[in-house]
């Protein structure tokens, strides 16, 4: 018994350390990339130089001063601005400060973007966009997950039938991403039939009444949700169905059939149970995949979520926002992987913790 506990503890510590290291290295890399190894500093300095130069030269009260004096004022203001943004210290020094801030989730202030309420706090900017992403991608992915799960189970019982062959035939269409289907859906339902909006999350001006507001959001959600759903429904059903079929051909399932157990029990106890770890994994990764949304789909549908925010942030060289989005994703991923290890041990008696390596 003590042997088991010792093994569990060692294993847990090992996993936590390994995951923490992965997160630290991953986030540091993300910081380096988001700053292009310090190259973004030069872009920012050039922007400051230009803005300061323009503001000083355009300032009426400073007109008439000799050029050398103007030069001095420009340089002085530039220095202040550099110092304000920390650009006076070398990048490598700041990169570790950034890393520490990111890891402690001290997300700081953005450089250009602001939330709709006018705040520069990255935390608030992200929180403002999060509901939109969660609403759209949560709905679409949950629909997708449960629909494909049940459809896959249903098809695995009727494999070889017309619907089964239809799904197999349609599976290759899933190679196209959601935004691609989005374009077609916009073309058909918004442009030709004019029954659904082109994009956005709510009509302008937003309705005052809560019910009307909800209905308007719902109407705007239909096309992006459908696009997401269409882009992966066939491959999801196909892979579920194949997965269940593989498990359904195991000897113990044959044995259960031979014993004459009802098909409902066979499905629940002999097919779903052993596939549970995989299904849980997929579900967990689906949930963390919600973070970040989908950059292009949100851009195509003008959906005010995290994906479009990230795209805007990159366009404005707003590295704090990019890094914040990445670090949250990294934490979510590491946490999920860790929790999955534990959940595996709980749902799957075959997994013996710490015996032989681990997943991921």
């Amino acid at each position, binding site marked *: 018994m003590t042997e088991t506990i010792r093994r569990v503890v060692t294993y847990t510590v090992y996993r936590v350390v*390994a995951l923490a*290291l*992965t*997160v630290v*290295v*991953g*986030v540091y*890399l*993300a910081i380096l*990339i*988001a700053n*292009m190894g310090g*190259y*973004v500093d030069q*872009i920012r300095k050039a922007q400051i130089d230009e803005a300061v130069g323009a503001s000083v030269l355009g300032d009426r009260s400073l007109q008439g001063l000799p050029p050398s004096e103007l030069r001095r004022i420009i340089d002085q203001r530039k220095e202040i601005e550099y110092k304000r943004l920390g650009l006076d210290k070398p990048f490598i020094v700041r990169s570790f400060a950034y890393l520490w801030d990111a890891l402690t989730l001290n997300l700081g202030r953005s450089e250009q973007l602001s939330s709709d309420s006018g705040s520069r706090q990255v935390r608030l900017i992200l929180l403002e966009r999060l509901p939109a992403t969660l609403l759209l991608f949560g709905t679409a992915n949950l629909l997708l997950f449960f629909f494909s799960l049940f459809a896959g189970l249903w098809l695995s019982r009727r*494999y070889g039938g017309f619907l089964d062959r239809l799904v197999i*035939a349609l*599976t*290759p*269409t*899933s*190679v*196209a*991403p959601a*935004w*691609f289907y989005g*374009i*077609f859906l*916009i*073309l058909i339902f*918004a*442009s030709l039939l004019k029954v659904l909006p*082109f994009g956005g999350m709510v009509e302008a001006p937003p309705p005052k009444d809560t019910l009307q507001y909800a209905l308007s959001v719902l109407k705007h959600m239909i096309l992006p949700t459908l696009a997401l759903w269409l882009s992966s429904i066939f491959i999801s059903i196909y892979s579920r169905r*194949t997965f269940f*079929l*593989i498990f359904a051909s195991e000897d113990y399932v044959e044995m259960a059939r031979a014993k004459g157990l009802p098909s409902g029990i066979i499905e629940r106890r002999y097919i779903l149970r052993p596939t549970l770890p995989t299904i849980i994994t997929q579900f967990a990764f689906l949930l963390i995949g919600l973070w*970040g949304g989908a*950059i*292009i789909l949100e*851009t*195509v549908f003008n959906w005010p979520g995290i994906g479009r925010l*990230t*795209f805007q942030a*990159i*366009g404005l*060289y707003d590295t704090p926002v*990019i890094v914040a*989005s*990445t670090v949250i*994703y*990294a934490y979510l*991923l*590491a946490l999920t992987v860790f929790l999955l290890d534990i959940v595996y041990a709980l749902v799957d008696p075959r997994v013996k913790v710490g015996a032989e390596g681990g997943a*991921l």
Partner: protein
Amino acid sequence: MTALRTGLQQIRRYPSALVGLGIIVGLIVLAIAAVFIIPYEEAIRLWRGGEDVWQESPRYAQPAWVNLFSAKKLPETIVLSTLSPSVKKTRSDKTVTISLAFDYAYDDFPSELTLFFQAQYRELLPYARLSWRTPDGREISLGERKLSASDRYSISQDTRLERRLGNRPPEVGLFAAPTAPQVPLKGRYELQITGTLFEEHSDIDAKLVVYGKVYGLAGTDHKRRDLMVALLWGAPVALAFGFIVAIGTSLTTLIIAAIGAWYGRWVDALIQRITEVNIILPTLVILIIVGTFYSRNIWVMMLAITALSIFGAGIKVYRAIFLQIKESPYIEAARAYGASNLRLIVRYMTPRVIPVLVPGFVTLIPSLVFLEASLGVLGLGDPVLPTWGKVLNDASTNGALYKGYYYWVLSPSVLLMITALGFSLLGFALDRIFNPRLREL
């Protein structure tokens, strides 16, 4: 290797694989044809060219074949130039008379009217009087103007003329009959230019462009460019992008996984940790960062995508297979005769994974084709090359879907879809062939 060969022979039993293969062969032929019909430099010149290259093609024109399916015939572009022999230009001592006459038999108004001049003179600018004659014999004065060496008169943008025509755009007002202003009057129109010259060697040349609403096989975009250039050239770009990146990542991943499995211990651990770090990094975000901050060059993008996908999920799959292979007797035999590590990895281990690799490789290509298009849609396509993604980007930034320019969105999308389907049909079939667990299902 024999496994691969027998597997490939089975393709014949899968109609979807044959369809996919047919599409791929067709695309490759199209890509080669594109490179021969429009050589690289010419394609770049056409695609990057502005008004000077595309002076004679309309904006936002639909493909010409739409006329086949509709009773209402949309106009094609009519170009009349004094440099062509069919146009009458008579010159006496001090005057030049140019008659630009054409038959107009379409059911819709032109999209634009522009008159280009070229005048020769030393000091004194020639002078021209313009007059428009409709089929029903009305004569509308288009005013008088002094002509410089190279001059243009955008008739459609002449607001004074528009007011004179009863507040209708000139390209409508000049073609409409007073009794039925909704449709253009069919028949022979004539633009007469009477030029007065003040010098002996002075001369005037004129070109009238009546811009239509249909053009070529693919239509045109907001910059008057023939979309055919981009649609044709999109094929070789997409295919090259997909093939090169897919080969680069598959082979590198394979070899790295083999090395990790073979040497084990810290090498393997290092590769595993790199893979985990890489999974944390958001690929598309990094690609957008590279495109925005650094360079949109297609080679840079390909390198970035390859670098980010080498340590992907594939490495774990290959590693698991290699760990099994490593223990098999033939490897032990090879070791016994003294084969080097390199020989063992390259000649004995990697070929065994090829049946798993091939379907993965084929299904990787369409996702790369779409990735390239995605970057194009975000405005991060290669700044020089014409690609399908960039056409889609142009279309969406110019509101093609709002304004009803469906051809602009549909033609690149359909090509993208066909390409992707070709590879994924083949890839799924190969997966079923090489993956024995799937074969019966």
